[in-house]
């Protein structure tokens, strides 16, 4: 669109995308989905239902999941945006991605980027999530192949691995996990 006939507002934006600073002007109506896919060519974020229902375009803004399809880019100014490309900086996979591969939690893979980002936010808020926590976060991410069971297994794998790491750390500091004293009330 030529600037001469453009009738909208240009909005100044300064944000971090996957840890890198980005500064520039965007059209007021530019969605975050257009911004990451078309402007930045980060095409891991998928366009699907475009009505906040399916979760394929999930990205994290300051660590919280949002639907990029209906989120205006200027709203992300001053914030940290994380797309699927930001989960594996330098090519080394996140433990959640490893767990998805190990469990076969992706079939066609179209929902996977959004699933992984929602799961990342879930595990950030609830390192040992209950089934209710998982439902609260994942009820808005739809997988048409039906890999839900494997996705749940992958989440549990990461939660268990993190618990083991923590317990070993506690063990090294002199406390035995099996004989932990009762918590003070």
């Amino acid at each position: 669109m030529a600037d001469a006939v453009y009738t909208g507002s240009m909005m100044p934006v300064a944000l971090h995308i996957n840890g890198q600073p980005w500064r520039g002007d965007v059209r007021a109506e530019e969605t975050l989905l257009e911004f990451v896919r078309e402007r930045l060519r980060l095409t891991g974020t998928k366009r699907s239902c475009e009505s906040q229902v399916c979760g394929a375009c999930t990205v994290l803004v300051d660590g919280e999941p949002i639907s990029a399809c209906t989120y205006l880019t200027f709203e992300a100014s001053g914030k940290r945006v994380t797309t699927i490309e930001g989960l594996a900086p330098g090519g080394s996979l996140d433990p959640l991605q490893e767990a998805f591969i190990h469990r076969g939690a992706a079939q066609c893979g179209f929902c996977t980027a959004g699933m992984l980002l929602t799961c990342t936010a879930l595990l950030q808020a609830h390192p040992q999530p209950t089934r209710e926590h998982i439902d609260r976060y994942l009820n808005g991410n739809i997988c048409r192949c039906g890999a839900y069971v494997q996705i749940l297994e992958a989440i549990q794998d990461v939660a268990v691995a993190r618990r083991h790491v923590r317990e070993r750390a506690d063990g090294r500091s002199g406390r035995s996990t099996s004989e932990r004293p009762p918590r003070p009330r």
Partner: protein
Amino acid sequence: MLRPLRVSQPTTVTEASAELARLGEDAKVYAGGTELILLLQLGLVHYTHLVDVKKIPALGELAWDGKTMHIGAAVTHRRLERSADVAEHLPLLHQAAARVANVRVRNVGTLGGNLCFGDPHSDPAPALLVYNTRVTIGHHGGARSIGLDEFFVGLYETALAPDELVVEVEVEPMPPGVGSAYLRCARVERPSLAVAVAAAQRDGRLAHVRLAVSCIGPVPMRLQELEARLEGATLAEGQAILRQAQRHYEEILQPVDDGHGSVAYKTYLTGVLLGRALTQAVGANGRQ
């Protein structure tokens, strides 16, 4: 694809209202945008100008003053879901906020936006109707306050004038000892039926009964006639009254046959969910 939009970001209610007055039908108040951006993309509404109200400090406030909860219109569902004050004093709203759509919508969508959109398929509306809830409406000449029941006028229609905006809602909790329950039936994210009930049981008799229903009629509503009939009844009598009130639901709520179900199904289900919620409310004894 969205058409070009101009965005203004006023920092006071007066400025926002003046902007709305100046731009007339070309402009719409914009907060979370979870409904508005969707409708613009679908081409169901046409605005060339958005008045972003999130820079107005009062609209972002969430405060408990010891008696009343003040919820700024631009407070997100997620903040309500995570607020310890809301969980403690307004358990119904806390439950309803946690049920809105999905976590992404809750992170962005606002309480004021949900109410102003006037969609009858609202989670927070029935919860707020059970409490004494007032809506503070601002315009460039000042402010006015109306009850939430007067705010909903019709399908997607509210009492707001074109140059007015919701500043905050003020919510008073139920008295101590009054329990409550929020129940919904949904095949998709928007509920097909949602009910909110508050009640206490004293010496085997129901007291402080409040019943609210959303989704099946054009506006979310309190059922005050039924509340009066339940007051002083036993729980079993109350259950029977709610189950047998299908004709009343049809007259008062004015349901229509649609993709969510037939009128007969909706009124039957209303009796079932209200009955269940009543049992939960008196069983919970003041806690949720």
